[in-house]
């Protein structure tokens, strides 16, 4: 649509033809917020999903269970990435949302005797409520948000631990067992988790390639400027936090029903929160696929390490984390515009990373 201009043709118009009159090169279509569907990615994605769908029928129970856990963390990482990777608010306490989702679902099923899916919704809503309560914290600068998010997670765990019979305290909560044999249950949750993962990936993609997504990135790059440009930073950050909490809580509810038992130390653990952060970071902050890729790698490597080193597994994981931070400043999946160029200087440049 052409913006009405003055008599002579001007570059400052949305009409490509008019711009071409002034300068032929300017006739290229402007970058728009119209989503250009990445067909190659969709195709590959469909292939991967189809392959995954076959897994429960060909792989061992161990693999199926491992993949459920990997997908669970991947969904959590995707959720984290909305405020962590895109808005730049890196929370070290996302385990809180997972835990609240798990406990919300568990309590809804045991105390309120609700069936699974309504209970899951309640769990997700509970986490969203927590995010709402936390929202004043987003006023604070980066470091402080890291600290407070961590603190909130710890407080949540302690509250649950001391919650008496309502929350099961240190004994945890036993949920009604899902119907079917062990294999059927695992298969059921495998598909549920897979569906959730695909939904989260598609959701992240849509979110990022929208005005909202641009607003998030603007906030990350320079919040003051974003505010000056007219972005309602407070509202945008709030919505991002709520979405992030919901996306992290859903796998929590699934986990609770799948395991049939949850305890505070398990679902509110710092390990969970940090795995999500490190995984998303290794995969590449600010990318759609990054969190999934990074978390998958981190968990599978971690599983291998635990299998081989047992007692030293924490230490070996620590060494791997240190090496990862030193060598991969940007993570694995490149952002738009970057790429893995094989020229040595480009590689060194990529390894060195950006200056702060």
């Amino acid at each position, binding site marked *: 649509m052409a913006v009405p201009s003055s008599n002579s043709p001007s570059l400052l118009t949305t009409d490509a033809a008019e711009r071409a009159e002034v300068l032929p090169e300017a006739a290229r279509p402007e970058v728009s917020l119209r989503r250009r569907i990445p067909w190659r990615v969709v195709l590959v994605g469909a292939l991967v999903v189809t392959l995954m769908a076959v897994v429960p029928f060909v792989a061992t129970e161990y693999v199926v269970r491992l993949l459920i856990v990997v997908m669970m963390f991947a969904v959590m990482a995707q959720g984290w990435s909305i405020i962590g990777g895109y808005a730049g608010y890196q929370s070290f306490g996302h385990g809180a949302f997972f835990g609240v989702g798990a406990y919300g679902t568990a309590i809804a099923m045991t105390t309120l005797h609700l069936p699974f899916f309504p209970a899951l919704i309640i769990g997700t809503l509970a986490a969203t409520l927590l995010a709402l309560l936390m929202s004043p914290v987003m006023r604070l*600068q980066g470091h402080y948000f890291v600290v407070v998010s961590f603190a909130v997670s710890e407080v949540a765990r302690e509250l649950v631990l001391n919650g008496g019979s309502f929350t099961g305290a240190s004994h945890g909560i036993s949920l009604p067992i899902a119907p079917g044999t062990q294999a059927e249950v695992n298969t059921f949750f495998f598909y549920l988790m897979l569906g959730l993962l695909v939904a989260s990936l598609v959701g992240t993609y849509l979110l990022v390639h929208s005005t909202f997504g641009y607003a998030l990135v603007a906030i990350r790059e320079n919040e003051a400027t974003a505010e000056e440009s007219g972005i309602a930073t407070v509202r945008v950050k709030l919505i991002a936090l709520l979405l992030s909490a919901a996306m992290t809580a859903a796998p929590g509810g699934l986990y609770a029903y799948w395991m049939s038992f949850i305890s505070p130390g398990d679902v509110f653990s710092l390990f969970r929160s940090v795995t999500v952060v490190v995984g998303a970071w290794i995969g590449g902050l600010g990318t759609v696929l990054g969190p999934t890729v990074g978390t998958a790698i981190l968990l599978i490597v971690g599983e291998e390490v635990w299998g081989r080193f047992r007692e030293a597994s924490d230490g070996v994981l620590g060494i791997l984390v240190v090496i990862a931070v030193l060598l991969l400043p940007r993570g694995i999946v490149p952002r738009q515009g970057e790429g893995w160029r094989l020229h040595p200087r480009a590689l060194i440049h990529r390894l060195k990373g950006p200056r702060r």
Partner: protein
Amino acid sequence: MDVTFVAQIVLGGLLIGGVYALVASGFSLIWGVLNIVNLAHGGFMMLGAYVTYLAFDRLGIDPFVSIAISAPLMFAFGYITYRFVLHLVSRRATLSTVTLTYGLLLIMVNGAEIFLGTESKSVQASYAGASVEVGGVLVPLVRVMMFAFAVVLLGAIALFMSRTHPGRAITATRMDATAAQLCGVNADRIYFMTFALAAATAGATGSLFAVAYAFSPHIALWMLPKMFVVVVLAGLGNFRYLLAAGVILGLAETGSTALIGGSFQVAVSYAVLVLILMIRPQGLGGRAFLK
């Protein structure tokens, strides 16, 4: 509630507050000057405690004297850790450094578990149980000594920061690194020294802690929330209120233990932290860190 009971609680909180303040001083220094949230700081404290334990157990060295061993040892260890690992990422974003220090923490705790054992250790000096009764209140002398040493060390560091040339260089770098460099300060050397100094104070704190309490590798994790609370409460980069902040935390802990039971203690530390950050993020004396 009778006076002696309250006095006992107050005394307990006060005495541990000194330790909290001392370990937080190093943490605050690293955060303020280097802009690194050093999750591994508790690790240096833990190692200092083990040095004291080993010195006492194998060589019979008095724990308070062993500070002269643990502090320089941790200074060296901190210097090496910073120079060859952390400095490489010092210019990167916060998340990189936090993740890196988390990795270091894992290595330290797990390493200690493997090489030093997971059981609790304690240092039982000959004067361990000595106490004096003052007006019905039991005053554990060892803890008083611990507190006294902590206060002296804190004072020494504060004096170092304000009166000596290297100390003032550090303070200047904290205020404005570029301006400090323009005045001839070698920023890189300052960074090395600050981290090493902070590690040394953590080591000293560990030694003091070992005198009065049992410990295991897990104190590295256990101290983390306390350090955060004290630093935030005092105000980032601010030395003046550290002791007060440490004591406040100590009192909050002992007070809550007496009132609502010990199981809430950890939650109380964190809840205090969240409250402070919501209500007054600059703490008692720091700059406001609102966006």
